[in-house]
């Protein structure tokens, strides 16, 4: 099933970018045709890394690698990479505190000074799971398609906890959506 939803915060990701600038985008989820279609119209480098395929990213007794080591190995980029835009989608709802902190530690060296990010969180941690893959249709419209396989480990966090753990980003704006979900606009911490 595929549907579309307008976004109040998505346009802000792109407002500060120059149309003639070559932008670097990080997409941490499965790539949808709509996203390719959108970015095909921009001068950009799109880095795609579907961390949902690596879940659960939490430490279990007996694991050889820590969560930080696993995420660090998954997120390798050329040294000169600096992301202008990061698309987390609802990944933060599937990571525990250690996972969110590890993600930030791995990304921080690769963020442009004015980097912005978009994510979905929840207003109420008991909000039901939105079992979707996400993409960008236009600068103000998001595509959502059902996941073919259910993902384990949905355990969303309050906005207060996310703000504490998102070292490197701060929440610039949040918008309450249906079913107590939140759309979050993040910017690099000054």
């Amino acid at each position, binding site marked *: 099933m595929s549907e579309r939803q307008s976004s109040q915060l998505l346009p802000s990701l792109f407002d500060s970018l120059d149309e003639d600038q070559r932008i670097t985008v990080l997409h941490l989820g499965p790539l949808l045709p709509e996203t*390719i279609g959108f970015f095909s119209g921009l001068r950009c480098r799109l880095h795609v890394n*579907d961390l949902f395929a690596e879940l659960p990213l939490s430490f279990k007794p007996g694991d050889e690698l820590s969560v930080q080591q696993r995420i660090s190995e998954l997120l390798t980029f050329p040294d000169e990479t600096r992301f202008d835009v990061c698309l987390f989608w609802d990944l933060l709802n599937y990571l525990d505190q250690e996972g969110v902190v590890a993600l930030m530690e791995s990304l921080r060296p690769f963020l442009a000074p004015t980097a912005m990010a978009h994510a979905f969180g929840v207003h109420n941690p008991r909000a039901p799971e939105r079992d979707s893959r996400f993409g960008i249709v236009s600068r103000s419209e998001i595509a959502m398609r059902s996941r073919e396989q259910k993902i384990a480990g949905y355990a969303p966090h309050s906005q207060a906890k996310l703000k504490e753990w998102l070292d490197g980003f701060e929440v610039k704006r949040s918008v*309450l959506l249906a079913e107590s979900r939140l759309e979050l606009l993040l910017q690099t911490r000054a």
Partner: protein
Amino acid sequence: MIGPSIEIKGTVTGDEDLIIQGKVEGSIELGAHEVTVGESGKVSADITARTVRIDGEVAGDVRGNEKVVISKSGNVRGNIIAPRMTLEDGAIFKGSIDMDPGDGAAKVSLAPSASTSPSDAAPELDLKRG
């Protein structure tokens, strides 16, 4: 065509289109032609061609001088450079994609739009403005 039972290690070059249903390790250079990696194809090589269509597995960098297509059965780990790219739903991709629509192509405008209609959005409440 490289059939399903064929395995090649080395550089593949030529002056015709190529369909790969077998295994190739090394590099594939058919800059003026079309390369298709079929559903049973497994390529561990960099590919350069006019058009590259991937229905199977590719681990390597892909340069399509005109276009790269990853179909729903395609699985690509590598970096892609192409002026145009198509990806079908269900395709698996990990890597980077360099895109440049060029001056003549339709570009996406990043400029703020005059108005954004949230009419089809879920109910919204702005909780915080920074």
